């Protein structure tokens, strides 16, 4: 679907999610600290953070399950405190801590969701989309964890909502299930829906999300595209160099090179963490100091490591 699709540009007037200083405190405990974030319509947004970072708290604020203690929160143009019902009617929700009804079949679940939403979907086609059509008439109590998750995803898709809020949707899914989930998320976004996808694990979101936000200890510490995050990752390259000898003072002159964050070394081994562009300068400096380079190796952190670094460094600040 092209960006000039009339439906898509028409609905893009107001942001899907617009947060201005969203805050949630429980007494002295700050669950969410002045989070500001705008997610345009049609975007797939990955909401990352370790367990307990406040992801579910924010989702509960968005859906009117809990009330913010500060800030302005708008979803699909409506204020979350004034119109939670209108918001939920246009939103499909896959909650993190959701359960199915043991005594109802998969088909009954979907059919209940369709009637409750006043939608006109076919239960069968929803069940086929999430891949549990062959278990449609079995009680949900017999479903595996992954099948329950698929069923709940199917219920979230009912009524073609403008916004899909998926809280840890890959919980319990096997690799095939995670692939199916990504496909459905892409299809929903292609239809024009906005997808808000929370996860504690980066590889669940990097393949599908346009942008990601990283939440740690209730603070939104980064919002960027996957590429942007990758560039940040590149800036934290680790260069390991084997030299024949290491003259005194070499380490401190390396540390003085612009773009070098840190350097350390012993007799024949130097480890430098620096930006990608500074690597040649480091090698040149070593040669200039009289150390001949035997071998060198560069190591870029994976996004996963970056994510861990992001979230754990903010742990340290507290």
């Amino acid at each position, binding site marked *: 679907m092209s960006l000039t699709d009339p439906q898509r540009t028409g609905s893009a007037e107001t942001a899907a999610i617009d947060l201005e200083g969203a805050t949630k405190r429980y007494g002295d405990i700050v669950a969410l600290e002045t989070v500001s974030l705008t997610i345009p319509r049609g975007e797939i947004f990955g909401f990352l953070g370790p367990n307990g970072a406040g992801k579910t708290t924010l989702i509960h604020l968005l*859906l009117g399950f809990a009330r913010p203690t500060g800030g302005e929160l708008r979803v699909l143009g409506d204020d979350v405190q004034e119109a939670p*019902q209108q918001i939920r009617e246009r939103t499909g929700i*896959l*909650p993190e*801590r959701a*359960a199915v*009804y043991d*005594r109802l079949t998969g088909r009954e679940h979907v059919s209940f969701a369709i009637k409750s939403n006043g939608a006109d979907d076919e239960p069968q086609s929803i069940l086929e989309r999430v891949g549990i059509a062959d278990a449609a008439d079995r009680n949900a109590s017999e479903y595996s964890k992954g099948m329950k998750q698929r069923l*709940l995803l199917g219920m*979230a898709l009912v009524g073609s909502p403008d916004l899909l809020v998926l809280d840890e949707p890959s919980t319990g899914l096997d690799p095939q299930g995670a692939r199916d989930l990504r496909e459905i998320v892409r299809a929903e976004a292609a239809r024009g829906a906005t997808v808000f996808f929370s996860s504690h694990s980066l590889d669940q979101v990097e393949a599908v999300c346009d942008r990601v936000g990283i939440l740690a200890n209730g603070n939104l510490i980064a919002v960027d595209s996957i590429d942007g995050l990758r560039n940040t990752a590149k800036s934290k390259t680790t260069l390991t160099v084997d030299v024949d000898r290491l003259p005194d003072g070499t380490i401190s002159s390396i540390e003085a090179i612009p773009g070098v964050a840190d350097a350390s070394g012993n007799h024949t081994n130097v480890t430098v963490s620096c930006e990608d562009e500074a690597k040649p300068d480091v090698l040149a400096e070593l040669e200039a100091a009289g150390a001949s380079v035997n071998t060198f190796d560069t190591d870029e952190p994976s996004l996963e490591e970056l994510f861990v670094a992001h979230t754990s460094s903010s742990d340290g600040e507290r």
Partner: protein
Amino acid sequence: MSVGRWTMRAMLVGKKEFLVAIRSRVLLGLIALFVLFTVGGIVLAAQFGNLVNADSNTVSILFGLLSPAAMFVPIIGTLIGYKAIAAERESGSIYSLLGMSHSRGTIVFGKIIGRSCVVAVSIVLGFSAGAVALVAATGTIRPVQFLVFVGATLLLGVAYVSLAVAISSTTGSTTRAAWGAFGTFVVLNFLWELLAFLLHFLHTGTTSIEPPLPEWFVLFFRLSPAVAYQIVATATLPEDDLFLSGLAEVSGTAGETPFYLEPWFAVGILGFWIVVPAAAGYVRFKRLEI
């Protein structure tokens, strides 16, 4: 949300509750319990009634069920209602319900409707079996009195479902909901009398309670749903009935009966116990963070 859509959604929740009660055999068990209760009670009353009173007729047999029912029905209503919302919060399925566009209101009222139907169906079927037993034991039945008795029992059952669901909506723990709901049952069914007597003592300074009783005391006594139930259930008994005159002597007052001690007012009291807990539960639940 339009009224039509709201009602439709509440009914959907109600239907789901009813369906689950059928599948989990809760309904079947309840029907069996009520059949056992009414048929067993009628058979026993017929046996012992004849020993005590040769004039024992359908009325006194039927009303032998009165005080057991005033205890039994509240227990059943509480049992059926107390988990309604707390269990959905405990498991997390409440989020799915809210996710499929249900409001707090359609959840609370839908739960009360669905679970009231479960209790009502078992009461109606149980008393239908009771009617057969009554005819078998005495060869006759007084339809009006029987129907009023059943109607009063239905109101009592629904009142306790409403109370229990309302209490269930205040907590995310079924354990706490159980304490709250059964605590309320104990207060209304056991401590209420004590409270009435305590108030009487504080007011008059005497521990002796003899007719004629002060009107406020009788009213207070009747505010308990179980007492109001007994008033309503016996409302169509003939004036000269032994049972009723006995009851009038205990609870009666001298002279003109004020309007608030008329039987129809007791219907209003039962109505109060249906509507007010439901409304209060809804108002509380609407504001709650879940």
